[in-house]
């Protein structure tokens, strides 16, 4: 009881939940600002790491599938804002969020950095495949589609998926480790207070 009173007497910006949401939002912002940049060493065949995907994986790995889906939806909308809404990124990131959250329940993988990198590798391939499926669908359904024929879409998909998966999984620990540490500390803080 006393601890609850002490927490609520703090000013708003010092309260743990406010600090936690600020850190979370700031990390999303950093990912968004990293997207259009091509920093030397972060580029393979003109492809940069998929920072939002790494964030969604880091978020969903210890949460349930609904939280994963919401994170995928929000970050997908943000990436749509930065490129173009067709084909949409929300679908691929929601799939990634839900799959990552479900994966954790089966306990096939521990939560160390190597398995996180592996999950990111698989999820990057899945995300690019969902996008390629959307583009192929558009190509098949609409008569005046602007996209190239199916063969070249999937050839391009191979190249993109592989380089994006390699780069994202290599850079995944850089984002996953600090974020995970922070969320762990926050949850232990809020349980002790």
């Amino acid at each position: 009881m006393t601890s609850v009173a002490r927490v609520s007497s703090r000013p708003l910006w010092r309260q743990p939940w406010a600090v936690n949401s600020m850190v979370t939002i700031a990390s999303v912002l950093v990912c968004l600002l990293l997207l259009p940049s091509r920093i030397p060493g972060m580029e393979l065949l003109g492809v940069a790491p998929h920072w939002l995907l790494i964030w969604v994986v880091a978020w969903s790995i210890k949460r349930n599938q609904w939280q994963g889906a919401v994170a995928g939806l929000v970050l997908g909308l943000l990436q749509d804002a930065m490129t173009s809404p067709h084909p949409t990124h929300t679908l691929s990131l929601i799939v990634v969020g839900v799959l990552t959250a479900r994966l954790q329940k089966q306990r096939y993988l521990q939560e160390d950095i190597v398995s996180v990198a592996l999950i990111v590798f698989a999820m990057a391939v899945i995300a690019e495949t969902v996008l390629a499926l959307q583009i192929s669908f558009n190509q098949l359904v609409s008569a005046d589609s602007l996209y190239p024929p199916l063969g070249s879409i999937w050839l391009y998909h191979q190249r993109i998926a592989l380089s994006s998966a390699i780069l994202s999984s290599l850079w995944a620990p850089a984002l996953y480790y600090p974020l995970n540490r922070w969320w762990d500390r926050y949850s232990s803080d809020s349980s002790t207070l």
Partner: protein
Amino acid sequence: MVTLAVSSAWLLRASDGALIYEAYNWLTRPLQPGLSREQQFENSYILELQQRIVELENQNRSLQTMADYEAAAVREGVRAAVIGRAADHWWQQIVLNRGSRQGVTVGHVVTGPGGLIGRVIAVSPSTSRVLLISDPTSRVGAKVSRSRAMGVVRGQSNNRVVIEFFEKLPDVKTGDVIVTSSYSRLFPQDIPIGRIESIDLTKSPAPEAVIQLSSPLPILEWAMVHPFEPQETVDAPVLPGAAPENGAIPENTGRVRP
């Protein structure tokens, strides 16, 4: 909390991510290239000048036979630095550090050292996003400068573009210069695009040729934004069987002139 996150993401999407790009521009300001980097593109400038000469010679020849010749409509534009690339791998876009505050609007044409790069598809107060001609959804009406054979330049998403000819047997050789054609609705005519690298006349449904772009798209650091008003209707007759060009069907270009 969830609705707040979703609605703010939706708002950002509705504004085309203008806020994010503003922040990005502000953050990368110390990293943006200085004027001295221009020297790297000297070779491309020379290439552009060579191609312009070829184009001018051909124009001169055709001027003698043509009575109602219209001058190329490229006006002087704003210089802008390339500060970012597409935020996803499926799109070929660049981000420039000039926006609506400098008079850039959607539809303006962007050229670089060497020739045509693309057109502006979104602006924020101090940044603008450019769809490159190497994007798979980009279409540019173009012609072979030497023989006036017409075609559509299509992106291939890997910094390579191909030209699809309208005729079955176009008069084209490797090394020919490709420029934008007067049938193009979204680009002014006679901007150099590149040179023919290889030709595949057996390609169905239309003969195709691979173009070596004269502007170095992957290492681009500077670009010029030229004011241009895309045309909805063209007075000149459109070739029979001409595909909708420039990545947009006329109704969808979004700019209706009074």
